[in-house]
């Protein structure tokens, strides 16, 4: 068993959106002979996307520098409401603690999108002619969410999500919480990581380190 988790260090994040672009490249945009095909309003469907303010009622941050970028994506909860809400069991949690959608079972009812307290599940209702760039990529009319780039799990370079790979400042740290020597668990043990909407008891595995100026 492993519990994969991610930390965003808001001290280091400069808001270059490299992670968003990398995610779009990795999971959403399709390479075609005569160009790139991607959904309209692409930033709505990027799996990690910037939002203007921390979620209302989450970490109510006073004097939070207004230009601090704040990225949100699937929180990979340990107690995910989306999995509980799914009528067919298409949403499920893998042994790595990653919440995935089995498209063979999904009936497109969008119950998971309603159940998610973070609003990070999306569904593209338009059309895309070509197949997704990877087996876990975006497919129209299916709920789409961050998978921590699950297709890279067994890659020879190790499991590094595209956003982590793209971050030039090391603001994103990815690792296993069950491994006490991993970078992530070390930071969370000793650092100042907070989670969103702690009161809901969803126990996210996605942490934010609040900015120290």
């Amino acid at each position, binding site marked *: 068993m492993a519990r994969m988790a991610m930390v965003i260090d808001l*001290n280091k994040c400069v808001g270059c959106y490299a992670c968003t672009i990398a995610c779009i490249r990795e999971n959403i945009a399709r390479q075609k002979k005569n160009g790139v095909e991607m959904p309209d309003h692409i930033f709505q469907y990027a799996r990690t996307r910037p939002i203007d303010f921390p979620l209302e009622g989450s970490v*109510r941050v006073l004097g939070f520098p207004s230009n601090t970028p704040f990225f949100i994506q699937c929180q990979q909860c340990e107690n995910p409401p989306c999995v509980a809400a799914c009528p067919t069991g298409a949403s499920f949690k893998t042994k790595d603690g990653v919440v995935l959608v089995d*498209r*063979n079972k999904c009936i497109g009812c969008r119950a998971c999108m309603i159940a998610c307290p973070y609003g990070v599940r999306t569904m593209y209702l338009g059309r895309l002619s070509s197949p*997704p760039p990877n087996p876990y990529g975006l*497919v129209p009319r299916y709920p789409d969410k961050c998978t921590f780039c699950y297709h890279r799990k067994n890659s020879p370079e190790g499991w590094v999500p595209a956003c982590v790979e793209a971050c030039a400042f090391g603001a994103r740290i990815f690792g296993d919480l069950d491994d006490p020597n991993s970078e992530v668990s070390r*930071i969370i043990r000793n*650092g100042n990581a907070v989670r969103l909407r702690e*009161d809901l008891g969803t126990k996210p595995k996605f942490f934010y380190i609040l900015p120290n100026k």
Partner: protein
Amino acid sequence: MNRDVKNDNNKDAMNNGKIDEKRRDVLKLMAVGAAITSIPLVDKEKLMKVLKPVKLEGMLDYPLGGPSDSQSALEKRAKKKEAKLKKWCQKEARKVCEKYGESSEECKLVKQKCKLLVVKATPPKKGVRYAMALDLNKCIGCRRCVYACVMENNQARNLHIEWIRVLEANRMEFQDLLGSQWYYKEGPKKDKVYIPIACMHCEKPPCVMVCPVRATFKEPDGIVVIDYDRCIGCRYCEVACPYGARRFNWKKPYIPVLELNPNMHILGNVPRQIHVMEKCTWCIQRTRDGGVPACVEVCPVGARVFGNLNDPNSPIRRIAEEYGLFVLKPDAGTHPKFFYFFGPARTPPREGAASTSKEAQNGGGSK
């Protein structure tokens, strides 16, 4: 999994289901009519007035029902109480002097206390809004603030009333208070975070809302106080408080005169009667005279910061801008004035790696 499923059954379903077109037309017509008639009726300026955010400045003075007594009545009451307490103090002092002898240290101390004894009714300063912040990275859970609070605020010694509670929680899930410990034995442990919890002095205090006799109210300087002479002991506020900050005098409170704090405020640390509620007042007897609360003064690691939120140069504003503050149970919507923050990280170096000063300074886990 990577198949683009073509599923256009929805369209057919829409066409098969019969739709009453006439009914829809009528409804549409009604809606359009309503819209047309409403346009000339709505003045744009009036609409903008409605949409404008409400100005909070004036409203925040005594929200949700003010105090039951005016300032002058409070002062009168304070004077009466002072006379009564002085009498009581001298009576107790005689007992102490008999026990220890006239020339003993105790006797002198008690006599001095009786001389210094004062019950104030200092009104709130204008333009001040107090707030406190606590550095969770610094707090070591030594509970010295608790002891200082008990001594400073004349809390009953026979009731084990402690206004501050220190919780020991896992650092991973520190906001999940269910898994936290109240009665931990020994000092700072690895992987633990210590969360002192007292009255949060909320902007929208549920306790003030539910008090049936306006015995508890929020002062303009942001301190939520209890009028001990008005409290009827229904304990509704204790039920309503999301932070468990209130304490009830279930028995007749008792304070030895030797441990009495002679500097008192009528709404703060004046000795309580039986069956009244009490809670943290941010040491109203000190802060209104320009001091800081006892817990702030005593904290050995300087984890607590107290200041005026309205003052741009106050330490609390500096902390807010540098570190960002957050509150406990934000979902309760109470807008507390007691903030928590993570100060400069104390991330120790990884095992095996040499501890360079650079890494320690870098904060939260650099690569």
